[in-house]
């Protein structure tokens, strides 16, 4: 995580926002982004991502807290003076203008001459590969083309900071992947600072230098993608990023390196205590499906349990096994396809094992959250 102050280009300091004076849509949001960095705000729908961008762009004011741009508070700077390129969730291209006119708009607003503006528009159109569509109106473009036009318009005036709000939300998967790559390439080439919003964890992983995971208006964790995956700090992050198995249980023994957790009396699991301290009782354990070993050699893994195979799905490079384990009905395991198709069959009883360090003891699931195992 980059340090506050020096090098921070954008900084949210404990920013909170309430639209109606009652509910906080964003709560104590703190984030600092270095110049040239690509930071993604990731979270489920309604968690306050757009609200954060709106406050930064100047369309909404924080209820409390402060936002700094380049070290200076921007509370009093009007939106049109902030020089921030914004790509909106609904594109927000101007429907009555051609694509070229749309792209010329920010240049003209900055008093560019006809000549300068035409040159700038041409460069931007080439950059987003829309030169052939300059004279069309947004309504005559496909979703992906409109998206590129919106990106071109946000970049054409060479802002230092670009905000993108789920720009690929409406596109199909293939196009999304192409566009992700293009966005990343553009950002690196232009060396702009990017704050990107998405609810798609895959997209966040592919694009970002760092990801801020949000939930219910609060930040859960800010970290580079691989850290988020390997070392989720909360149960929410562990479940939101990638696939995870979850076992709920009670802590029976605790040291700083290892804790022993009783999973509903069906067995005791050894885990790495991330979010449980001394004296905590309830916890949720998470284990990545690919970190589970089938029939491990005795002594190799601290945790070994019997499992009843319910389903085996042949994916190609790996087998995906659904099994019942320690009362969890949907325990998922991914086994690399070394053992071959047919080595494990539904109905078999097998042993699954995993290392203590691969099993993270996190905060307990709130009772309302849908769990893998029913209570009692």
């Amino acid at each position, binding site marked *: 995580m980059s340090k506050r102050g020096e090098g921070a280009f954008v900084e949210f300091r404990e920013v909170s926002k309430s639209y109606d004076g009652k509910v906080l849509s964003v709560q104590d949001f703190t984030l600092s982004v270095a110049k040239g960095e690509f930071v993604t705000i990731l979270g489920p729908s309604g968690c306050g991502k757009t609200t954060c961008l709106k406050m930064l762009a100047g369309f909404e004011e924080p209820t409390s807290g402060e936002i700094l741009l380049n070290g200076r508070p921007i509370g009093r700077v009007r939106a049109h003076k902030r020089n921030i390129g914004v790509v909106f969730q609904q594109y*927000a291209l101007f429907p009555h203008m051609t694509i070229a006119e749309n792209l010329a708009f920010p240049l003209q607003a900055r008093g560019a001459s006809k000549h300068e503006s035409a040159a700038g528009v041409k460069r931007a159109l080439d950059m987003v590969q829309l030169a052939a569509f300059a004279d069309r109106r947004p309504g005559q473009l496909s979703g992906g083309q409109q998206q590129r036009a919106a990106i071109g318009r946000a970049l054409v005036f060479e802002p230092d900071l670009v905000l993108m709000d789920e720009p690929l939300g409406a596109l199909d998967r293939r196009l999304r992947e192409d566009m992700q790559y293009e966005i990343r390439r553009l950002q690196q080439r232009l060396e702009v600072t990017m704050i990107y919003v998405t609810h798609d964890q895959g997209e966040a992983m592919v694009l970002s230098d760092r990801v801020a995971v949000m939930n219910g208006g609060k930040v859960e964790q800010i970290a580079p993608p691989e850290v988020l995956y390997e070392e989720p700090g909360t149960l929410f992050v562990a479940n939101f990023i990638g696939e995870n198995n979850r076992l709920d249980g009670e802590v029976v023994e605790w040291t700083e390196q290892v804790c022993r957790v009783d999973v509903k009396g069906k067995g005791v699991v050894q885990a790495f205590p991330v979010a449980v301290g001394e004296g905590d009782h309830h916890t949720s354990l998470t284990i990545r499906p690919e970190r589970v070993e089938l029939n491990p050699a005795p002594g190799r893994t601290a945790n070994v349990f019997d499992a009843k195979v319910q389903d085996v799905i042949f994916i190609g490079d790996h087998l995906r096994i659904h099994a019942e384990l320690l009362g969890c009905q949907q325990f998922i395991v991914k086994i690399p396809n070394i053992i071959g198709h047919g080595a494990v069959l539904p109905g078999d009883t097998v042993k699954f094992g995993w290392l203590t360090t691969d099993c993270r003891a996190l905060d307990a699931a709130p009772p309302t959250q849908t769990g893998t195992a029913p209570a009692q």
Partner: protein
Amino acid sequence: MMGKSRTQALLLSLPLIAFIGITFVAPLGSMVLRSFYDPLVAEILPKTVAALGEWDGGALPPEGVYALLAEELRQARADRTIGRLATRLNRQTPGLRSVVSGTGRRLARQGQPPWAEALPRMNKAWGEPEVWHAIAQAGRRVTPTYYLNALDLRMDADSGVVQQPEAKRVYRALFVKTIGVALAITLLCLGIGYPLAWFIAHSPPRRGRLLLVLVLLPFWTSLLVRTTSWIVLLQQQGVLNNLLIWAGVVADDQRLTLMHNMIGTFVAMTHVLLPFMVLPLYSVMSGIPPVQMQAASSLGAKWPRAFRRVYLPQSMPGVGAGCLLVFILAMGYYITPALVGGQSGQLISNFIAYHMQTSLNWGLAAALGSILFVAVLLLFLLYDRVLGLDRMRLGS
């Protein structure tokens, strides 16, 4: 199969076609017809008119025509149609009313051939060719008279179409005035309605609904009541004058005349027609996402520029629809100017009403109405050419 389902579809839509025919095409058609088709004289004096057809129009018609007229005038008096005949002929040539009805009265009591001598004795007008020309003219079933009158023109026996005498020219100036007033009211409504619609469309939903109801409220109140309340407000002893005197702006002996003149017409009509401007504007504006203006400002445009380049063009379909609606309604508005307009505040439709109800000159009323109708139709076509009717949005 195809043919059958077509027939079925046609049969199913017959009631609708009949409805449109009865409520729309028929009245409109009968109005237009009345403006140029007038069989009254030809029906009451069929033989005379036919005989006059052979008349060379030089000197006076021959004895035979006099005899036919005498016979048919007697008959008309007996049938009690002579009054209408007299009125109609009087319209053709002023003064003929008394000639016709007087002669009819005398014919009932006296008179015998030769009629060419007897009739001029009863009224010396029968000794002059003008009367006969007038009857011949009026005897034509298809007549341009009403249109000519509606445009301040008339037929002259020898020189064809000429201007009405200066003192009788009314309608051309009135058309111009009506168009001017309608334009001015349209602009007023736009000036008030645009910001109002903006405010309603971009208010939080709750407040927006409330404001919309307030705008619609006048719709649900009788037009008469609304207009009368303007009388209460605007008359010389009215609320507004009293307020102004109380505030010391005007002296008691200099009360403003705000009613029974153009001011009254303007104020009341703008009020009455405002919803027709606000509704289409509101419907278009509420379809413009707020994010459009946000995008414009994030791209560096100050508010005025963002408004002019981004918002205004997108609201144009509403502006077009609202203006067209208000202009057309204002062109044909009748009750409000009649009540608060006084002498100077009367518009073309008040004269149409006058000819419908008081002077009973339905032909002229129809001609005036048809001209108004065609003017509006032309406007519509012009609008379609310039802005495109398909881009017009009346409601979402």
